[in-house]
C-alpha cells in the first residue's frame, strides 16, 4: 500500500528539515518498484540490486530537487531508469550498438498468435511454476524499449501518463510499445498457455 501523497509530502519536508532517518520510511513502499525498474533495463538480479541501491542513494542525495510537480513515485522511477541506463551504457561501451539507437521500426510482425484449439485456462494452470519461469524468460528476451514499458505498466502498474513522464516519451509511444510488448509475449507464451483441461467458462471468460 502506498502512502497518501499528502503524508509523503510531509515526510519529504521533515527529511529535508533534518530528520534524515525518515527517508527509510519514505522509500519503503517503493523498494520493489525501484528494483524492478532497474531490472527491466539490466535483466540481471545482482546488477539490478546494485543499481537499485544506487538509485535510492541518489534519490536521497537529490531529494531537495524534488519539486512536487510530479508524483514522488514518478520522480523516483526516472532516477531508477537513469541509473539502469547508465550501467547499461557502461556495460555496453565496448559494444557497437547503443541503447539510444533502439527505436521501434514499422516492419516486424505484431500480430498475436491465433489459438485454434484454445480452451479456457483454468486458474490452477496459472499456478504452474514453469509458466512463471517461461514468462520471466520471455520478458527478458523482449527488446529493451518494449521491456521497460511492459514492466512499468503491467508489473509496476504505473498509468500511461506516469510511464510517459518517467521515460520522457509521449503517451502515444507508450501505448504503441505496450501493445507490441504484450503481443510479443502472447506469441511467445502461447505454447505454455495451451491446456488440455476441459473447456469451461469462468475466471477470464468474456463476460468479464
Amino acid at each position, binding site marked *: 500500500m502506498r502512502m497518501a501523497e499528502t503524508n509523503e509530502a510531509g515526510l519529504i519536508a521533515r527529511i529535508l528539515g533534518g530528520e*534524515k*532517518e525518515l*527517508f*527509510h520510511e519514505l*522509500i519503503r513502499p517503493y*523498494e*520493489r518498484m525501484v*528494483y*524492478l525498474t532497474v*531490472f527491466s533495463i539490466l535483466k540481471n*538480479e*545482482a546488477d539490478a*540490486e546494485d543499481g*537499485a*541501491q544506487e538509485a*535510492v*542513494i541518489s534519490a*536521497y*542525495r537529490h531529494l531537495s530537487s524534488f519539486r512536487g510537480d510530479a508524483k514522488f513515485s514518478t520522480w523516483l522511477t526516472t532516477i531508477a531508469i537513469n541509473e539502469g541506463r547508465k550501467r547499461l551504457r557502461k556495460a555496453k561501451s565496448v559494444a557497437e550498438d547503443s541503447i539510444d539507437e533502439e527505436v521501434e521500426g514499422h516492419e516486424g510482425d505484431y*500480430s*498475436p*498468435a*491465433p*489459438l*485454434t484449439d*484454445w480452451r*479456457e*485456462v483454468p486458474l490452477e494452470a*496459472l499456478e504452474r511454476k514453469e*509458466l*512463471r519461469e517461461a*514468462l*520471466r524468460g520471455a*520478458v527478458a528476451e523482449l527488446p529493451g524499449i518494449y521491456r521497460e514499458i*511492459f514492466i512499468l505498466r*503491467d*508489473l509496476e*502498474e504505473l498509468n*500511461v501518463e506516469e510511464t510517459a513522464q518517467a521515460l520522457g516519451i509521449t503517451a502515444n509511444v507508450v*501505448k504503441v510499445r*505496450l*501493445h507490441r510488448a*504484450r*503481443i510479443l*509475449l*502472447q506469441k511467445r*507464451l*502461447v505454447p505454455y*498457455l495451451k491446456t488440455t483441461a476441459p473447456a469451461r467458462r469462468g475466471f*477470464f*471468460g*468474456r463476460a468479464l
Partner: protein
Amino acid sequence: MKLKCKHVWEHISEYIDNSVDAKLREEIERHLEHCEICSAILDSTRNILVLTADERTFELPVGYSKRLHERLTKELEGSEKDSKKE
C-alpha cells in the same frame, strides 16, 4: 460494418486497458461474441497480464530490502558526519 480479426488485434491492448471509445468497444465485443480465435487471443493475453502482476512471478532477491536499508543507514550516517564538519 463488421470488424475484421486483424482490426481487433490492433486494438487488443487498448481494449484490455479500457481505453477504446464506446463505439469501438461495442464493435469489438460484438466481434468477440462470434469469433473464437479473437476471444482466445484476448483471454491468453489477459492471462499473461494476471501472471505478470502476480508477485511470485518477479520476485525480489532474498535479503534485498535488508541490504538496501543497511546501505542507506551508512549513507545517512555519512551525510550526518559531513554536515557536522561544515
